[in-house]
């Protein structure tokens, strides 16, 4: 297993948000975390990255990473594309990507710039433009590209479709499919668009007010009556 989480509890200040989650992501797999607004999806991703106070066991690549600093977890190969994208607005596209490769010392960095331009041709056209001046879709692509520049083993994606036109969303999911095939990165995907997420994922978890209420292979979850009614809309 790439990522194993057991009994994860987390919260802000005195308010508990997560009440003990168990889930896992396999090497090179895509798992998706579904749930209503405020269920605690973002908090889960933050807890994995050490950005909120958390209890429980988080094992990444066979090693316990609970209580480690965000930087250290990132250096172990966990790349986080946060809610709101977290691009460096004042820096150019190129600089954002260079920052993504900040911790890498291998000579393949140059090659990876090419690779990103292949996956995200739009970015190539904006190479020296300030990230803050990009459109929402371009920024999302930049955020994903920046994360991939880390050559991560696990990619945490927080609602990559947020606020984007359906066409762009389809593009992004197309790219994600390509990325996982070509790079073998594992993905934990938080998404409101359950149809797209379940299409991409092998496993799915349904989160309700800080608890996992349903877990299983994506194909089975798609057939689930409750899911269909509340999340897929048919």
């Amino acid at each position: 297993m790439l990522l194993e989480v057991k009994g994860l509890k987390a919260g802000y200040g005195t308010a508990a948000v997560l009440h003990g989650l168990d889930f896992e992501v396999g090497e090179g797999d895509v798992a998706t975390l579904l749930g209503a607004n405020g269920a605690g999806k973002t908090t889960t991703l933050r807890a994995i990255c050490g950005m909120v106070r958390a209890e429980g066991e988080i094992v990444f690549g066979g090693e316990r990473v609970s209580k480690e600093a965000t930087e250290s977890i990132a250096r172990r190969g966990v790349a986080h594309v946060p809610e709101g994208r977290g691009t460096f607005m004042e820096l150019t596209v190129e600089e954002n990507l260079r920052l993504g490769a900040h911790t890498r010392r291998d000579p393949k960095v140059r090659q990876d710039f090419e690779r990103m331009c292949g996956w995200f041709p739009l970015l190539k056209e904006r190479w020296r433009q300030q990230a803050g001046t990009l459109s929402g879709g371009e920024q999302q692509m930049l955020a994903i590209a920046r994360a991939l520049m880390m050559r991560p083993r696990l990619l945490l994606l927080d609602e990559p479709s947020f606020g984007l036109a359906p066409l762009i969303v389809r593009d992004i999911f197309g790219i994600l499919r390509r990325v996982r095939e070509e790079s073998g990165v594992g993905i934990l995907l938080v998404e409101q668009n359950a149809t797209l997420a379940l299409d991409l994922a092998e496993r799915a978890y349904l989160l309700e007010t800080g608890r996992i209420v349903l877990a299983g292979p994506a194909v089975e979850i798609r057939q689930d009556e409750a899911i269909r009614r509340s999340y897929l809309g048919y």
Partner: protein
Amino acid sequence: MDAFLLQLAAGVATGGIYASVALAIVMIYRATHHVNFAQGEMATLSTFVALTLIQAGLPYWVAFAATLAVSFVMGTLVERLIMRPVQHAPVLTQVGVYIGMLLIIGNLTGWVFGYTTKVFPSPFEGHGPALGGLISAHQLGSVGVTLAVLLLVYLFFTQTSLGLAMRGAAYNPASAKMVGIRVGRMLALGWGLAAMIGAVAGMMVAPIVFLDPNMMLGVLLYAFAGALLGGIDNPAGAVAGGFLVGVLENLAGPYLVGTELKLTVALAIIIGVLVLRPSGLFGRIVHARV
């Protein structure tokens, strides 16, 4: 006309010093969103260290380099030991801590090195006036040194990956952590660099104004004026602003107000900028979290 050129040249020379301190202030500002009121005191302490090393018999440039190293360490220590513990504290606490540092460093300097005014050597003296008598050798040399420092800093921030990481950490610490940048280290590094830049300014201004524990207070005021004029969040702007206020000061000095009101000129520039162009010439308005 000659007198005008003379003042202009002198303005550029002092402007370089203001520009350096303004840059140090903006660097800290961008990382912490506060102005380091103790920047001047730190620079004065560095200059005293330099004087001590020179008096101990070290050649000037060796002492210069050693002072930069000491200043760097001092800057990082200040960040680690004093600023780090209060980085999430309320604004009043942070500003108060800067003031506390100003008091402690300033008075320790006086305590250790004495309050009498001291002569500080210039490495460029003995070369006579330069540029046809327009400017003294020291002024020309200090312009050269400050420009070289500014250029190095510019190259560091734009061309090296460490410089880029420091910019990223200052702009967006949360995202910087997500790509594995050790933000705390970057902050300490920034403080160290700012202290180094301040030390250069101190060593360049000391031969002109003489060295005493309050030497940098006036310089600091002009650096504030320069930083505001250029835009408090814009390093390049702050440098330009520093040069501009240096020239303004030297032109306003003899022609408008006389030399006794130099500090008031700085104050007037500061208020003038806030009234007329609060974002500075090249910056954005910053709504501090106060």
